[in-house]
């Protein structure tokens, strides 16, 4: 009893009102000891965040029912009144959330937001609290705290905001920190820094951490013990190493398979399918390397030469140009028919703008884009639309990229109609398209809201395929999906490449997926490609310092290798904003091997 800080016993939560109550979690039980880190892992809808919010009693009271018992530090929190809970929250239990961009009040200075906690729980005056806030900012390593304390959240980057959140949660030295996907919205190098920071502070404060995540890599890096949740229930709990190496639970095994590092000795050059699982949880199809689809001899399906896209920043009053965002700078690459090139990098590196520039959705400043040798750059209007049919795009957010008022059939027919296909022919192609992406053709008359995220992404892929493209630009196409769904969609993309000989430009920040889908990988940093080459070489033998930094920041889903990673230095991602008359320095690339090039250091 004494070594348990938090005991969650048979907690069930239902949402609803009146007579209709829908269970969200049932009989969730687990313990967290003093100073221990426990990961709650699961996919969206598994109830992990709801569990955390139910411990904090932050769910809307009128529409929520909670049963079961929550014991914290020997006291029964479920018996606490709202007023008593307020004294616990932010004081004895701190909490940080997923979205650093929206979790801070945009209209209050960060100093006031942190200080507020001290004023509330410690009864400090504002002036006294300010001193403590300065100390806290230094502890979470925000540089120039003295100056930044009066700034507002919009002046901070995502990683810095998450540091502010941490400072806020730790202000009163809580015994327990609940971290709800604290690094999910951050770039890997920043994620690495935040995880380290939490670990350091935890050791200093002897604080327990409840770490909610969907990422088994992060679990392997941080957790002493792990609770796996699925569909509102705890399916497994135990020591993290036991969960990783001895689990017999089919769901856990599936989660692990989705993040397992690729065995580089077995799979060298071609994309690798994820293993498939049957409904009983056993493997129904092993992971396997794809057959060779690359046509290395013909004209490249897509070739991009010296592509440069800049955005002009204008003065608000006189609309004078005051700077330029060098979003894409002198980018050159080509993709053969049947080949996948992954474009990787962190947010703001210009990878999405590259994709959009290729489709001429953003007008590039200069550069040529050739589709099977035909130059797209000088086309416009009808000519451009005709050429662009063989170049289609799949976007990140399957919820936002389908018109909610269009049935699936409408969504699939529209691009064909634009391409001049008559309605009858277009309609007749719909069942075929749906079957192609693994959906039931009878679903054609339904609306997007009736589908899950994974199904919607299948629909988006079917829509892109409707005009029989040769090249698909997939912009973070699987990033918003849960791990197991992600694996299915990646497999679908790989199968389609096999069947239709498609070329992919796969834009992603997710290295575990890139490892699987690519023939070649290009790494972008501040608008430029710093390294490009075959997947096994770039990932296995990175030459550019940025590539190394990026790869070393990716959490390894193997608890036995914890702590082996080099501690990442303190890097804020720079921005590509330059003066109006800035001239980009000339770049040279060194050839590492036959097709592996690295930007020479200037």
């Amino acid at each position, binding site marked *: 009893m004494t070594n348990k800080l938090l005991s969650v016993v048979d907690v069930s939560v239902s949402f609803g009102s009146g007579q209709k109550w829908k269970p969200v979690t049932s009989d969730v039980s687990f313990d967290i000891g003093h100073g221990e880190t426990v990961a709650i892992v699961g996919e969206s809808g598994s109830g992990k965040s709801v569990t955390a919010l139910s411990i*904090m009693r*932050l769910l809307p009271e*009128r529409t929520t029912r909670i049963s079961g018992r929550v014991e914290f530090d020997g006291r029964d929190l479920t018996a606490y009144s709202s007023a008593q*809970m*307020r*004294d*616990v*929250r*932010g*004081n004895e239990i*701190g*909490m940080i*959330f997923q*979205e650093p961009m*929206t*979790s*801070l*009040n*945009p*209209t*209050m200075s960060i100093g006031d937001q942190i200080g*507020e*906690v001290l004023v*509330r*729980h410690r009864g400090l005056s504002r002036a006294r609290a300010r001193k403590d806030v300065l100390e806290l900012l230094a502890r979470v390593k925000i540089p120039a705290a003295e100056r930044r304390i009066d700034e*507002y959240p*919009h*002046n901070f980057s995502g990683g810095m905001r998450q540091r502010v*959140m941490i400072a*806020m*949660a730790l202000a009163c030295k809580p015994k327990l920190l609940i971290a709800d996907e604290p690094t999910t919205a951050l770039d890997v190098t920043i994620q690495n820094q935040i995880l380290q920071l939490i670990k350091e502070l935890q050791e200093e404060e002897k604080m327990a951490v409840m770490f909610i995540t969907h990422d088994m890599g992060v679990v392997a890096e941080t957790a002493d013990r792990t609770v796996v949740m699925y569909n509102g229930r705890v399916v497994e709990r135990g020591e993290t190493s036991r969960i990783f190496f001895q689990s017999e639970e089919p769901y856990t095994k599936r989660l692990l398979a989705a993040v397992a590092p690729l065995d580089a000795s077995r799979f060298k050059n071609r994309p690798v399918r994820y293993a498939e699982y049957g409904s009983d949880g056993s493997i129904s199809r092993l992971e396997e390397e794809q057959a060779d689809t690359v046509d290395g001899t013909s004209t490249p399906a897509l070739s991009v030469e010296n592509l440069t896209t800049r955005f002009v920043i204008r003065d*608000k*009053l006189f609309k004078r140009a005051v700077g330029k965002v060098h979003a894409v700078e002198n980018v050159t690459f080509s993709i053969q028919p049947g080949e996948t090139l992954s474009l990787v990098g962190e947010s703001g590196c210009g990878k999405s703008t590259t994709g959009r520039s290729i489709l001429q959705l953003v007008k590039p400043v200069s550069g040529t884009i050739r589709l099977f040798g035909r130059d797209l750059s000088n086309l416009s209007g009808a000519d451009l639309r005709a050429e662009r049919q063989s170049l289609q795009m799949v976007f990140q957010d399957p919820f936002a990229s389908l018109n909610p008022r269009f049935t699936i059939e409408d969504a699939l027919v529209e691009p064909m109609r634009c391409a001049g296909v008559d309605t009858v022919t277009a309609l007749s192609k719909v069942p075929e398209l749906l079957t192609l992406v693994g959906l039931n053709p009878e679903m054609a008359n339904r609306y997007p809201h009736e589908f899950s995220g994974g199904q919607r992404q299948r629909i988006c892929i079917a829509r892109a395929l409707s005009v029989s493209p040769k090249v698909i630009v997939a912009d973070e196409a699987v990033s918003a999906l849960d791990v197991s769904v992600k694996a299915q969609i990646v497999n679908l993309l790989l199968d389609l490449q096999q069947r239709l000989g498609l070329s992919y430009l796969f834009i992603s920040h997710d290295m575990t997926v890139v490892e699987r889908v690519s023939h070649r990988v290009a790494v972008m940093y501040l608008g430029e490609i710093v390294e490009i080459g075959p997947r096994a070489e770039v990932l296995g033998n990175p030459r550019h310092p940025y590539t190394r930094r990026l790869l070393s920041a990716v959490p390894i889903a193997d608890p036995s290798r914890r702590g082996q990673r080099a501690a990442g230095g303190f890097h804020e991602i720079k921005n590509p904003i330059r003066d109006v008359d800035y001239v980009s320095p000339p770049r040279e690339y060194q050839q590492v091997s036959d097709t592996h090039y690295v930007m020479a250091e200037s």
Partner: protein
Amino acid sequence: MFSYAMRRFITTIPVLLGISVLVFLTLRVSSGDPAAILGGDAVTTEQIEAIRQQLGLGEPVWKQYLLWLSHALRGDFGVSYYYKMPVTQLILSRVEPTMVLAVLTLAVSILIAIPLGTAAALRAGSIADSLSTAVAVVGFSVPVFVVGYALIGLFSIKLGLTPVQGYHRLSDGALATLASTILPSLALATVYIGLLTRITRASVLEVLNADYVRTAKAKGLMPLPITIKHVLRNAAAPIVTVVAMGFASLISGVVVTESVFNIPGLGRLMVDAVLARDYPSVQAIILIFTVFYVLINLLADISYGILDPRVAS
């Protein structure tokens, strides 16, 4: 923040100049002799000649405009031949009642609507919420003059608490002023209370679901500071917009209310001046109303910047 306010201020200058050109032109483009039009119905030949001199009618139009503008900037809008006094003096004597009425109306609306709307949002879906919706709908459905006469009937005639009509100047004592304007203000305010309650409710409801409100709760803050510091400040922008629009359009509402309650304000002056075809007064009042409108919008813009630091940066 200061540079933002200056920037906003500078952008209003071309707008103000544009308005002055339009007001100036209304008279020049109408058919007939501007001097005769300005003089009104009972004007003598000598007076027309005097007006012609004053307006510089022999000069090119741009010179006439500059002359007119320099007069206007110095507060000289000519003479009202109908009221037989300088327009500026006439308007000054009428500004006070209108301003008192507008400010009081606004104060009443804000004090009632914002707490009501916020409370409704906090208890969204409850009976109190539905009730506030009902009050709001009634508020902006019933015409001002109906509310006005109903209030007079109840408070002035039945209960005898307030004067039936008329206006007591501030120089006669603030209490008397308040007594004479409270009913017209309430009558005018019903519409704005309705509107503001709805806007406040919708805006607060949206902010209540924001992540940073959840953060504030996770910090263990008390409900009242959460509502004021975290919710209302972020919900303020649409509310400010409606208040500003409301304040500006109050002026048109004032025309009816001032008639019902027989208050000698700008609204009444406007109606009388139009009916009497007293062009110098009409011109000056239009200019004042539009300048007022622009200034209110400027204030609203600046307050967005104060409320939300992202706007000002």
